[in-house]
C-alpha cells in the first residue's frame, strides 16, 4: 500500500535521558472555561504517563473533553490546575512563545480538517516545520523524500485545494514528520475521510510509530480506530473512566 522504502523515515535522535522518564506525563490536570459567565469544568483531575514510543488513543463521546486534553498535552493551552511534562520539560512555567519553540523541536500534529496552509503548495507545507527550525537548506530534499514516502511524489507543486481529502491528510502526515518529532498528536485524523482512505492514513501512522519510535497520541471517538492503539484512555464528562494500562 505504501510505496517507497520504510527507511526513509530516520529515527529521531536517541533520547538522552534515562529510560524511566516518560515522554509525556500529566498530573492532576483540570481545565475550566467561562461560559455565559459561569465556570464550566471540562477536565477533572487527569493523571497519566506515556512512555517514549508508546501509542495512546484517547477515546470518548463528543463533549467528553478529548480535544481539550489534546490541546493541553501539546502545550496549545494552559491548564487551570495540574502539571504537564513533555519529554522532560515542564510546560507550566513556559510562555506561549517558549512553548511554540518546544513544539517546533519535538511535536508533530495531524488534524481532523488537515489544516494545510491553503496558500502554500504541498511541498512548501511540508517544509514549514524545518524552516521554522532554521533547516531551510535541507528542507526541499526532505520534503520530496517525504512526499514520495506518502505516495505523493510529483504532486509537490499542487495547492491543498487541488488535492483530495486523503491526499491532503497524507501531506499533513508528511508535514507532521518532516522535522522528526519525538511525539505526534493526532486529533480525529480520519474524521473527514472515507473508511478506506482513513485506514491508509492510520496504517501509515502505525508504521511510523513502529519504525521510528515516535510516540503517538491519537484522539478519536471511533472505537475501531482506538482499538489499534496499544493503550486506550476513555474519557466521559471530563474524567478518565477507563485506562487500559491500569486494567
Amino acid at each position, binding site marked *: 500500500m505504501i510505496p517507497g522504502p520504510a527507511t526513509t523515515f530516520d529515527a529521531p535522535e536517541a533520547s538522552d535521558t534515562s529510560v524511566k522518564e516518560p515522554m509525556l506525563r500529566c498530573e492532576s490536570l483540570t481545565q475550566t472555561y467561562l461560559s455565559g459567565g459561569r465556570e464550566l469544568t471540562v477536565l477533572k483531575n487527569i493523571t497519566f504517563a506515556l512512555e517514549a514510543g508508546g501509542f495512546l488513543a484517547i477515546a470518548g463521546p463528543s463533549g467528553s473533553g478529548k480535544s481539550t486534553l489534546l490541546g493541553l498535552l501539546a502545550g496549545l493551552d494552559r491548564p487551570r490546575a495540574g502539571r504537564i511534562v513533555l519529554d522532560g520539560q515542564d510546560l507550566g512555567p513556559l510562555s506561549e*512563545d517558549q512553548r511554540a519553540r518546544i*513544539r517546533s523541536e519535538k511535536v508533530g500534529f495531524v488534524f481532523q480538517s488537515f489544516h494545510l496552509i491553503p496558500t502554500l503548495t504541498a511541498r512548501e507545507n511540508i517544509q514549514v516545520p524545518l524552516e521554522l527550525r532554521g533547516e531551510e537548506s535541507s528542507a526541499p530534499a526532505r520534503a520530496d523524500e517525504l512526499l514520495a514516502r506518502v505516495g505523493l511524489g510529483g504532486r509537490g507543486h499542487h495547492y491543498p485545494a487541488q488535492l483530495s481529502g486523503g491526499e491532503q491528510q497524507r501531506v499533513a502526515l508528511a508535514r507532521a514528520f518532516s522535522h522528526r518529532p519525538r511525539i505526534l498528536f493526532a486529533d480525529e485524523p480520519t474524521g473527514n475521510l472515507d473508511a478506506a482512505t482513513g485506514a491508509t492514513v492510520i496504517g501509515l501512522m502505525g508504521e511510523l510509530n513502529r519504525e521510528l519510535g515516535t510516540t503517538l497520541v491519537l484522539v478519536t471517538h471511533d472505537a475501531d480506530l482506538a482499538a489499534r492503539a496499544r493503550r486506550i484512555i476513555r474519557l466521559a464528562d471530563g474524567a478518565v473512566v477507563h485506562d487500559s494500562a491500569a486494567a
Partner: protein
Amino acid sequence: MRPFVLAMAWRESRSSLRRLALLLASTAVGVAALVAISSFTDSLQDSVREQARSLLGADLTVGSASPFSPRAEEEIRKILAEARGAEESRLVRFAAMAYVPRTAATRLVQVTAVSGGYPFYGRIATEPPESWAHVAEAGGVLVDPALVSALDAKVGDTLALGEARLTVRGIVTGMPGDVAVRAALGPRVFMSARDLQATGLLSFGARARYETYLKLPAADPQRLAVRHRAALAAERARLRTVSEDEESLSRTLGRLGRYLALVALIAVLLGGLGVASAVHVFIKRKIETVAVLRCLGATGGRVLAVYLVQAAALGLMGSVLGVAIGLGVQAVLPLVMKDLLPVDVRYAPSWPAVLAGLAVGLWVAAAFALLPLLSVRHVSPLVVLRREYESDARGRRDPLRLLAAALLAASVAALAVFEAPSRQSGMGFALGIGIALLALWTAGLALSRALRHFLPARWPYLWRQGVANLYRPANQTVMVVLALGFGAFLLDTLFLVQHNLLRDLRVDARQDRPNLVLFDIQPDQRAGVEAELRRAGLPAQEPVPIVPMRIASVKGQKAGVALAAGTVEPPRDGGIGRRRGGPNPWTLRREYRSTYRDALTSTEKTAAGGPWPPPGWRQSGGPVPVSLEQEVATELGVHVGDEIVWDVQGREVPTRVAHLREVSWGRFEPNFFVVFPTGPLDAAPQTYVTLSRADDPGARAAVQRRVVEAFPNVTAIDLAQVQQALDRIVSRVALAIRFMALFSLATGAVVLVGAVATSRYQRLREAVLLKTLGATRGQILRIALAEYVSLGLLASATALLLATGAAWALVHWVFDSRFSLPGGALSATALVVVSLTVVVGMWTSHEVVRKPPLEVLRAE
C-alpha cells in the same frame, strides 16, 4: 529566523496580492497625490528660478500710483548714472474704454503704454511676429485675443482709445510673467507711449500706474536697491529687483504647493485607513493559517513578521505604482492650472518628491498595517482544534498595541507639520484629525450601545435583524463608522471650506440692483451723462462724488518717513493676518478715492464710534471727522479718535477717525475706504460715479457706446461682464482645487470599499446561515439594506457634524471669512455617502445571494 520569515512572506504573497489589492490601491492613490503635487511644486519653483528675469522683464523696477515726483525722478537718474550701460523703459498702465467704430462695440480694457526697450529679458510673442517692435516705431496698438473676440475686431481695424484713433497692428499671444486669468478682468491693449498724449486720458481722477524698468548689465541690482529704496519709498515709489520678485513669487507658489500638499496628505491618510481596513479583513481570513503556524511552533513575533513583510512589500509596490501615477498626473497639472500660473512649467520629475513619495507610501503601508497585524500575536493555536475559539486576551490592553498607536499618531502629526505651510497649521491639522477620529469612535460606540437598548421591537423583522447587526457580538460598527466617517469628514470639510471661500468671490446680482457703473465723470460732464441715460430710458441714481487723496500723516507721523523707515523690514508676504506694529506700507502708498455724505448706505453698518456723522461736529470746531472701513483701519493701525492728515490735491486736511464701518464688498455698489461728512470737500477737485440698471444686454451695450462716443474719458463697467470674468476666474481656481480633491474622493472610495469589506466576512457567514434556515434572497438583501443604510447614515451624519465644526474653525480663524452652510449641497453629499455605502454593501452581498450556501462557505 529571517529566512523563514522572508520565504513564508514570499510564498504567501502569491495569493495575498489579490486579497490585499485594496492595500496596494490605497497606498498608490495617496502616494500619487503626494508625488504629483510635490513634484509639480518643485518643477514650478525651478521654472520660476529659470524664468525670473523674463518674468520681470528687467533687473530692477520702480513703480508708483502717480507720476514720479521730481525727487523720485532724481533717484532714478542716480541709479542710471551709477550703473554702466544701463537702459530704461517706462510703462504707464491704466483702465480705459476701447471702442471699435467699424463694429460699434465697446469694452473696458487694461492699457499699457510703453516707451523704450521693455521687455529687456524674455520675448513677447505676437501675431504677426515682430509687431511689438513695429508698434514701438510706428505707433498703433497690440491687443489680447480676448479683445478681438469681445469687440469683433481684426488686425487692421481702427481702435478708439479716448480721443485717439489707433490701428490694431497685431495680437499678443504670449507674455512672460502673465497670468492668463488676469485678462478676464479686462483684455489688454499695448500701445506706444508716444500716442498717450493724443488719447486725452489720464486726465484728473484717472487711475494709472507708472513704472520704470531698468536693465543693469554691469551692476548688482541688489546693491542699488539697498542704496535707493528708502529715498524712493519716501516718495511713495516702490522698488523691486529681479531676485526679490523671484523670491516673493517662489514663496507664494511654495505656499500654494503646501496647501495642495495638505490636500494630498488627506489622500495619504485616507489611504492609511484603507490599508488598515484591508489588513483587518486579510487577518480575519488568515486566523487559521496563523493558528497552524503557531501549532507548528512559530512564535508570535515570527508570524507577525511574515505578515508585516507582506504588507510592506505590497506597500512598496503600491508606492511605486503611486509614483508612476503621480508623475503622470504631474504632466496633467499644468493644463489644469495653466491660466493661474505666471510661468511655463517645464515637466521634470522631482527626485526628492519621488523618494519622499516612496518613503511615505512604505510608512503608510507598514504603520497602518501594524495596528491590526499586532493581533496575530494573540491568535491561539487552539483555533485549529476549535474553530470558534475566541482568544480572551483580545489584546485590548496590549502595551505594544498602545505603543504602536501612539507612534502612529506621532508620525501622522510629524508628517502634517512637515507638509503644512506652517507649524501651527500642521499641528492644527493633526489635532483636527485626532478629534475627528475620537468623535467618530465615540459615535460608533454610542450608536451600537444605544441601539441595543432602544431598538423598537415593533419594527418589521427584516429591519430589526439588519439594524441589530450593528450591535451584535463581533460587529464592525465602530470600524466601519471610523473609516467611512473619516473619509466623509475630510471630503465634507474640503467641500465646505471651498464653498465658503468661493462664495466671497460671487457678486450679489439681485434683480433690483444696479448693473451698470459709469465713473471718472468730470463735473462738467454730469448733466450730459445723465441725459444719455435718460434718453436710453434707464434710471440714473444720484451721482456719487469721488475725491482722490493720499495720506500725509497718521497720528503725527509723516507717511513718507514711515514708508522710508519701513523698507528695512523684510517685504510682507501678502498673507492674511493682522499686523501688530505700524501701518501696512500699502495703506500709506495708495491713493484713496473717498466720498462725502451724511448717511450710511445699505451695504454699510456701524462697527464703532456711534452715529455718522457725529452730531454737532460742525459746531465743535475740531478736525473733520472721517469714517474708515474697519479692515483698512486695522491695516493702518488706527482706532476711533486717532488723527489722520490727508493730502487732497496738495492741500492738507486734518481729520479725526470718528467712525468705523463694516462694508459688504460683495454688493455691487460704490463702496469706500474713507467717507467724509458733507462740507469740507465740497469744493475739492472731484469726479463722479453713477449707477444704472438695464436688463437687456443690448441696451447696456448701446448706452455704453453712446457715452464713450460723447465722453471718451468716462469708464463704464458692465456687471454682467464682471460676473462673467469672476466666474471664469473662480471656475479656474475651483477646477484646480477640485482636481486635488478628486484624489481624496478616489481614496475615499477605496477606503469605503475596504470599510464595508471589513464586515463582509462576518455578514457572509450569517447570510449563509439564514439562507440555510430558509431565508429568501430578497429577505437577505433587505436585511443587508437595513444594515448599510443605518451605517451610512450614522457615518455621514457624524462626519457632517464634525466637518461643519472643522470648516467653521478654518473659515473663521484661518481664512478670516464668514461661514455659511450650503444646506442643499450638503444633503447631496450625505446622500452620496449613504448611497455609496449601500451600493458597495449590496454589491458584496450580491455574491451571497447568487451562489448556493455551501459554495460560499467552502470558498471562504
